[in-house]
């Protein structure tokens, strides 16, 4: 069936209107339906961002059960560095600065879990400069895991080599661990 408005595109929407007991039916395509105002979209459709802010607001319904005092506390959660408030963050879905992660830390775990399929920890790249101590830590952790596996499979010769690597690392760089401020 073709659209009754433009007679070009196929009709995909069938609208039934009842005004003063008068029933009218229109078959119309999406483009014409938008023009005629039968359907409306928010600006540029429904974005991932809308979905997200929806997710962030999931604890809203809990708020109704909170006391006045608790409510104020929630509202006042604000980043000391950039001034972003938690309610604004939920609205725009964006952090204002790196420090926001700390400022809102108590509220973020469930959000990360929702957005990242239950994950809350980073397992990837470590920046060279910001994380020189961290890289060493990670290297040691990897070696220890490798060592454990080698011992379990009784590959003792290999295991000894890995053990020596761990010792060398531990001897060489004791300081970075202590200097790790992040």
């Amino acid at each position: 069936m073709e659209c009754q408005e433009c007679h070009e595109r196929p009709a995909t929407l069938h609208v039934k209107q009842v005004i003063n007991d008068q029933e009218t039916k229109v078959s119309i395509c999406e483009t014409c339906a938008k023009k005629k105002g039968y359907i409306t979209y928010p600006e540029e459709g429904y974005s991932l961002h809308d979905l997200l802010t929806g997710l962030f607001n999931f604890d809203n319904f809990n708020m109704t059960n909170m006391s006045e005092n608790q409510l104020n506390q929630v509202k006042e959660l604000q980043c000391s560095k950039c001034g972003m408030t938690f309610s604004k963050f939920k609205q725009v879905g964006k952090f204002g600065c790196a420090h926001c992660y700390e400022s809102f830390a108590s509220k973020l775990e469930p959000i990360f879990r929702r957005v990242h399929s239950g994950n809350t920890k980073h397992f990837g790249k470590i920046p060279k400069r910001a994380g020189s101590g961290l890289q060493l830590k990670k290297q040691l952790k990897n070696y220890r895991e490798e060592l454990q596996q080698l011992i379990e499979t009784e590959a003792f010769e290999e295991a000894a080599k890995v053990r020596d690597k761990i010792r060398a690392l531990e001897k060489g760089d004791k300081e970075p661990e202590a200097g790790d401020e992040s």
Partner: protein
Amino acid sequence: MSLEHFIKDALSPWMYEQGPDNDIVMSSRIRLARNFATVTYPILAEHEKLDDIRSFFKKEYEHQTFQSYKDLEFVSIKDLTPVEKSVLVEKHLVSPHLVKRDEHAAVMISQNEQVSVMINEEDHIRIQLYFPGLQLKKALEEAFHFDDWIEEKVNYAYDETKGYLTSCPTNVGTGMRASVMMHLPALSMTKQINRMIPAISQLGLVVRGIYGEGSEALGNIFQISNQITLGKSEKDIVADLESVVNQLIDHERVARGFIMKRSGIELEDRIFRSYGVLQYSRIIESKEAAKCISDVRLGIDLGIIENTSGNILNELMVLTQPGFLQQYANRTLNASERDVLRASLIRERLKLEN
């Protein structure tokens, strides 16, 4: 301005190289989101701070070369005309979001257009690298090297447990989005793709059409990318994505073989009709153009159409976009004027092949 070739040529230089499986995978991309540790993010930062960041990149990196990414061109978005902005978006060198934030935004592009660094987008820094065909691992390796090079001069916002701290919680952790652009005409024709998309989504990956709106994928071109950035390393994310892409490639090949065997003459007819439309039409809408271009590309891949370069899909898809047409005409065009120019550009482009 030396910006000229970025704007004039529909094909980026790297697209002329052959990549693995590039009859189906058009390109692989890695994007890394990074921020300065001590500067407020672009959505809240004061104008002077954002200007400082832009000046910093201009001073430190303009015309610099890193390995094969030569002579970075520095472009302030506010210096561009509206048409130039749309062309950069259509070539995927910048995001639509970057050109909307034009006051402080900038981009650095290498001469081969393989690397672009967006400045003051949603994050302070977004590095993206493109490779022809399916080369995610290679792209990741190169992206890491490039990232290290930038990091020599920038103190990144990073946390031991949360990783790279991005403006949007959907990017935190690796800050990485890996994606591939795939041409999947046979899976679309047989409607198999509709069944595969939900399955792929369950693996933390997203499938969407790049051109066109909503669920339809103009030109049967799909983008598959990772959704999750926490809990998995970049290497694992890329490996998972690659294994799904490899399966899609296999299914697409099987479906192509099946259609050829079962309805070879109908397929040949469809392909040559589309070829005819592109060669002779005088008015063509972008939707019809995309469909015909996809058919012709399939014809090339299956050896039905000979003596025509496979790059035609990439090239014509960009060439026939509104911004590109207007830059070619050197004026703004309304929709029907665009349809006429589109038809004429396609005709001329196809003539060059024979």
